[in-house]
């Protein structure tokens, strides 16, 4: 009877319950919902009933006397007080459970950057999707490189802001294998709504396999370029797909080898030289039409020469595609 909205399955009302927190949160949600209904229905009934019963009509004359009933007033002040005290208590207990870190956890370093997620695992692997092991407590060690972000997986009923200048922590234990949406819920600029990724919950065996795979840089130069593209926050601004999606920065597609106009006037050929300049020293290399985009950080010292070459190779591999229209 109690769970009219929440369910272990993906219902119309709630996402799937996929962590140990979910049943607790949903339970409290349902209780509050019932309490609300129990208060709301009589209020509306009384309102409608009085509206009809005491409506102005010929031959009816209501009283004008101001009423005041101490017993009633005390009752409807005190009863809700007890109710909200209970709600507070339950909420606090649930919250403390979320805040108390278990001792043995799988740690993931989460870095949020405009508008990409990056997850680093114990073995040095790095990914832009969050991989988790089912039934194992996972701890997120989160920091932001620029502005406020917020980590939210609805199926886990878990959320925490990521504040620049400090570490924020959270933990949860996924209980169901599958793929779940991971949102950024704190407004972070142009592409805030694009800062979505997936939390993928896998069995122990699969999880370890994934991590091992992620830890290895691909051998093929184009593959490696793509691998870096996904990991070095290029993906947040520069799109590489063909579906016509556009980010704040120019797309990687097309125009390879052709001259492109610069924001400061003049043209430059879109070639290896330009790509490496634009990566190492983005200021002054902005393409025309992209001046207003939030400034791209310099990658000087963050990328090795051969890594830049790999990215260049990757960009080159995309040249056949038509450039999307801005």
């Amino acid at each position, binding site marked *: 009877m109690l769970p009219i909205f929440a369910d272990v399955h993906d219902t119309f009302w709630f996402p799937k319950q996929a962590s140990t927190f979910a049943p607790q949160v949903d339970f409290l949600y349902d209780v509050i919902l019932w309490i609300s209904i129990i208060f709301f229905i009589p209020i509306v009934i009384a309102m409608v009933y009085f509206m009809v019963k005491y409506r102005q009509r010929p031959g009816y004359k209501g009283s004008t006397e101001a009423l005041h009933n101490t017993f009633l007033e005390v009752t409807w002040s005190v009863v809700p007080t007890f109710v909200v005290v209970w709600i507070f208590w339950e909420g606090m207990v649930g919250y403390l459970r979320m805040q108390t870190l278990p001792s043995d956890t799988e740690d993931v370093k989460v870095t949020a950057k405009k508008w990409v997620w990056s997850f680093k695992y114990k073995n040095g692997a790095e990914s832009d999707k969050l991989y988790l092991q089912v039934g194992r407590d996972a701890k997120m060690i989160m*920091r932001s490189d620029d502005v406020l972000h917020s980590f939210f997986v609805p199926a886990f009923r878990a959320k925490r802001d990521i504040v620049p*200048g*400090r*570490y*924020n*922590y959270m933990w949860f234990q996924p209980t169901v294998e599958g793929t779940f949406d991971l949102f950024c819920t704190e407004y972070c600029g142009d592409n805030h709504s694009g800062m979505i990724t997936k939390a993928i919950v896998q069995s122990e065996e699969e999880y370890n396999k994934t991590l091992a795979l992620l830890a290895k840089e691909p051998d093929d130069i184009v593959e490696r370029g793509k691998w870096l593209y996904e990991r070095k926050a290029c993906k947040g601004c520069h799109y590489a797909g063909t579906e016509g999606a556009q980010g704040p920065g120019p797309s990687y597609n097309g125009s390879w080898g052709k001259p492109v106009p610069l924001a400061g006037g003049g043209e430059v050929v879109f070639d290896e030289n330009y790509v490496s300049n634009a990566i190492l020293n983005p200021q002054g290399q902005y393409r025309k039409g992209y001046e207003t985009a939030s400034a791209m950080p310099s990658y000087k010292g963050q990328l090795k020469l051969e890594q830049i070459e790999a990215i260049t190779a990757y960009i080159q591999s995309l040249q056949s595609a038509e450039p999307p229209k801005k």
Partner: protein
Amino acid sequence: MSAPSTHADHAHGNGNEHGHGHSGFSHPMPIWMLLSVFFALLVLTVATVYQSTFDLGNMEIWLSLTIATIKAGLVIAFFMHLVWDKPLNAIIILGSLIFVALFLGFTMMDAEGYRDNLIMTSTLEQSQPGATVVEVSK
């Protein structure tokens, strides 16, 4: 609060001929009182400067704040003649301090609570727009 204002026939018919006659609400402060408050304030200022020359550790800030509060109290009570003012005005200004305390208290309490999570930036590149740095070796 405005109880006295309701007696409508307040004598103020010829406003320009008041001279030294005081109506109910003007209370000129005696000069000796003004001067003595001022000298008390000066003495306290000297005291607060003097105490800063000793190394008192953590006590120092509390001591200087205490002296400042005494001074502020003197200013409020006498110069702003709150002691002779309507109680409402005193309640208002002192009440506001409660809200200040609330504001400071909660914010400080919270900042103290998450202090360990902070990442202090200890070295930053000192970039200043418009400044050119020329290195000169000695």
